[in-house]
């Protein structure tokens, strides 16, 4: 699209001349795409590692685990996303979206997961995009994660939150699980309304189904704790007002 039309008309073989221009254009584009894909893969892999790290959380190592996760997440931003940003500078972000979308989605998943664990709230798109701004050369338009990738990442987040909730319940942190449950329900409700408006919504549709499954898995786990916990009270009284009836350490 950005091809300049030089004076090719006087060329003895205009077709060959034109195609050498096309070739240059395609080579540059493909090389860039290849590098963007590579960056995206690295982002994916390292974001996944952050997620695995978050799942290593347990009742008493929270701060330590999260601190490491956040450090790793920051490293993803500094090392890999910055590379992506550099590559994309001066390009139409939408042109190469399919090349970097998987990585960006996974990063959104990791970043929102970390943020939820730390603050209990949803990390907004604006906040992520603000942190991206600092990476770019101020003279050019900075890379902005688009709404679609953000929402797709959010959809995957609920799966990780489900895993987290099941883990927390095993660890006796029912309150935490309940908080996750409320949060995931809220996201589901919002996405329910927004999903059909998204471009290429078929992808999102199957993610919605998975999401509902995740919500119900958390609800079932909470239910199970609740009915089991109900038996605890008659035996030992209800002086323990926290929701943490369950878990090996608490039954002491």
């Amino acid at each position, binding site marked *: *699209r950005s091809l300049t039309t030089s004076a090719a008309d006087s060329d003895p073989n205009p077709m060959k001349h*034109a195609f050498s221009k*096309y070739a240059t254009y395609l080579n540059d584009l493909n090389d860039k795409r290849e590098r963007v894909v590579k960056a995206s893969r690295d982002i994916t892999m390292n974001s996944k590692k952050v997620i695995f790290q978050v799942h290593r959380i347990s009742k008493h190592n929270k701060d330590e685990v999260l601190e490491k996760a956040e450090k790793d997440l920051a490293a993803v931003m500094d090392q890999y996303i910055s590379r992506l940003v550099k590559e994309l500078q001066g390009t139409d972000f939408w042109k190469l979206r399919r090349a970097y979308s998987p990585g960006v989605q996974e990063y959104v998943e990791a970043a929102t997961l970390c943020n939820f664990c730390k603050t209990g709230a949803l990390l907004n798109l604006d906040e992520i995009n603000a942190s991206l701004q600092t990476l770019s050369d101020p003279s050019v338009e900075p890379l902005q994660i688009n709404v679609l990738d953000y929402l797709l990442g959010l959809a995957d987040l609920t799966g990780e939150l489900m895993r987290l909730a099941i883990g927390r319940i095993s660890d006796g942190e029912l309150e935490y699980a309940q908080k996750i449950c409320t949060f995931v329900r809220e996201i589901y409700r919002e996405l329910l309304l927004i999903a059909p408006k998204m471009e290429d919504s078929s992808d999102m549709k199957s993610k919605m189904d998975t999401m509902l499954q995740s919500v119900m898995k958390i609800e079932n786990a909470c239910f199970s704790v609740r009915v089991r916990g109900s038996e605890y009270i008659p035996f030992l009284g209800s002086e323990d007002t926290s929701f943490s009836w369950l878990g090996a350490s608490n039954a002491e």
Partner: protein
Amino acid sequence: HTLEKQFEVFQHKLSDSGTLRERIRGVALEIESATRLMQSSLLLIHQSRPIPEVLEKANGQIVVLRELFAKLAEIISESPGQYYRYHGDWRSETQSVVSLLAFMHWLETESLLLHAEAEEKLGLKSSEFGLDIEDYLTGICFMSNDLPRYVVNQVTAGDYDCPRKVLKFLTDLHAAFRMLNLRNDFLRKKFDGMKYDLRRVEEVHYDVKIRGLATSGNSTAEQVDGETS
């Protein structure tokens, strides 16, 4: 509540983009319809109608198309920097247009319609709303797919020089395409198909030559003629 507020903003943004796409879809349908008319006129070439007559009628649609692309450009200009967000919605229509224009151009000049020429015909400006190069190239591949049929029908109608001309063009075009470093995508697949077009035209050329029907005077042609006539 910031969470809700954020999603409200998203709702609006996505609704706006939905409306935009609806409008694009409308224009794309009109483009498709104009292309269909153009193609209908062009199809008569396979029934050996004289080229100028066929081209005249087909050319009539170019003005219509130019206006429709101007309309598209205007719509897209409303959301700057998002050309490629919506690009998929008029992509295949554009490829068909290019394919027809290139065929018409070949009939007239026996040379390839270049990218810049295609943009000019459609009144597109590279800097604002241009013709994507991959779309252009895909359109050229589509054109190539129609050439074997054209050659077959021309020979049937007695035009024995056509295979030679098309073969020369297609050989050059195929060689030019091979300069490109194509990814494993749609365009690559279409280009892979060009091989079969080339092969078919070679076969027709062979048929004509071995029967001494290719009468035009270069040495190789004479050689065959000499031996069989």
